[in-house]
């Protein structure tokens, strides 16, 4: 039995807004969340630019015991999940009695681990670390915290797939619901922004150093791009069987039509045309949709010279030159482990409100980006179906196709 899978809630805690309303405003207005960070300058970063996401005050919402195992990934994910569950009309009481799973994307807890190690180095006694650190340190920190807070009784796994983690989390959840193994799953992605998290990535020289113009630094597909800008926060996407959503009277924001995935099996950091092409085609094949019905492609494009070119080639090969394309990373920066989930949420906001968010800072195309239809400014347009790409280190690729729900 194959079932239809729909999205019933989204939540966002990002550099372009705390919550959907703020994010929607930023998407419409092409507002960047990128800043120059003095802490990065002092720490020794080559690039001092980042998307900035404040740590939320969770004391009004959670007990000490519930908060003590949280560092940035779990804190951010709690905020986005709280918003998504409210929209989906779900709460802990319901989920305690009705099996609900969690598959969350996360691929680091650097800040938490280093804080813990610093304590041991100073005190030379592990029994003085305290009880919360282990639950902050483990990569499944978001799952451990949210599953206990919200009484989740279904699948409970963390998905680590570099910058495609958030996208794969939705894709894997989709497959489990489609096969009838789960009714609803809390999916998403979280990304820490502290200086410990991205130092080694910065050391590769892959980040933009356009320090004099932080909001113009991230410029996917533009000929003058000089690298990505790291960012973070969390995004939650609640997915559910159509039967469950209808029975509960939950809002249906879209239907997941296809999930494509592939591994490059090639270089550890360099992108690969073939892997991206296979992921895109697999998603299309699974959805039984013609490429011509895709109204919008939310590109992975991070603003790196090689990565954006490769993706422009893959999009052109599959869709030709007409489909509108934008990279919301031009505003948010690269939300890494979170990006695949946040970009589904950003695209759903566009679909609900009939517009395409601009690929800001796209001023001059290069040889590859001139072949595709990049949208540099806010554009009113009805979107019935969109595709979102996510690609990560190690050559992991994920493509999701979402369609406006029709009964």
């Amino acid at each position, binding site marked *: 039995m194959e079932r239809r899978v729909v999205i019933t809630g989204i939540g966002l805690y990002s550099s372009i807004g705390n919550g959907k309303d703020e994010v929607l405003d930023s998407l419409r207005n092409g507002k960047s969340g990128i800043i120059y960070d003095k802490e990065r300058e002092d720490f020794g970063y080559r690039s001092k630019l980042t998307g900035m996401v404040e740590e939320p005050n969770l004391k009004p919402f959670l*007990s*000490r*015991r519930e908060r*003590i195992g949280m560092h940035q990934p779990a804190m951010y994910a709690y905020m986005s999940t709280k918003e998504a569950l409210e929209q989906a009309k779900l709460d802990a009481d319901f989920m305690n009695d009705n099996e609900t799973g969690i598959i969350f994307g996360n691929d680091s807890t650097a800040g938490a681990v280093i804080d813990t190690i610093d304590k041991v180095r100073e005190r030379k*006694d592990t*029994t*003085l*670390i*305290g*009880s*919360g650190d282990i639950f902050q340190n483990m990569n499944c920190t978001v799952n451990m915290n949210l599953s206990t807070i919200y009484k989740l009784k279904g699948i409970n796994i963390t998905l680590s797939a570099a910058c495609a983690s958030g996208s794969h989390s939705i894709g894997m959840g989709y497959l489990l619901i489609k096969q009838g193994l789960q009714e609803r799953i809390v999916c998403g992605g979280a990304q820490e922004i502290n200086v410990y998290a991205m130092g080694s990535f910065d050391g590769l020289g892959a980040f933009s150093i356009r320090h004099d113009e932080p909001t113009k630094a991230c410029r996917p597909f533009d000929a003058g791009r000089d690298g990505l800008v790291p960012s973070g926060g969390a995004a939650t996407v609640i997915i559910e069987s159509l039967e469950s959503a209808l029975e509960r009277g939950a809002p249906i924001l879209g239907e997941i039509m296809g999930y494509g995935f592939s591994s490059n099996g090639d270089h550890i950091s360099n992108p690969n045309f073939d892997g991206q092409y296979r992921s895109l085609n697999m998603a299309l094949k699974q959805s039984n949709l013609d490429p011509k019905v895709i109204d919008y492609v939310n590109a992975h494009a991070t603003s790196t010279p090689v990565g954006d070119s490769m993706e422009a080639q893959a999009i052109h090969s599959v869709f030709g030159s007409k489909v509108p394309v934008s990279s919301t990373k031009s505003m948010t920066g690269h939300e890494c482990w979170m990006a695949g989930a946040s970009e589904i949420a950003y695209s759903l906001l566009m679909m609900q409100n009939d517009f395409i968010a601009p690929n800001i800072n796209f001023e001059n195309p290069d040889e590859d980006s001139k072949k595709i239809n990049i949208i540099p400014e806010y554009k009113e347009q009805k979107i019935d179906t969109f595709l979102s790409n996510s690609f990560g280190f190690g050559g992991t690729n994920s493509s999701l196709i979402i369609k406006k729900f029709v009964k």
Partner: protein
Amino acid sequence: MNREEIISTTKRFLSEEFEVDPGKIKPENNLQKTLDLDSLDYVDLVVVIEENLSFKPTADDFKSIDTFNDFYDLVEKKLA
């Protein structure tokens, strides 16, 4: 540190750490129930005692603690 100082000092850091009303920390009250301690919280209790009083209680020390009065006795003994 005399008994009164022990009571005021521990009331301050225990109420802050475990987020309980200082008014509920009374000599005759049960320490575990008042602070709502589970097994993990005892790890944190050791940490705050060490940070504030510069000694580290053992698991055996906690076996003899029922009320806050018992706790003050332990602190007096350790600081003596």
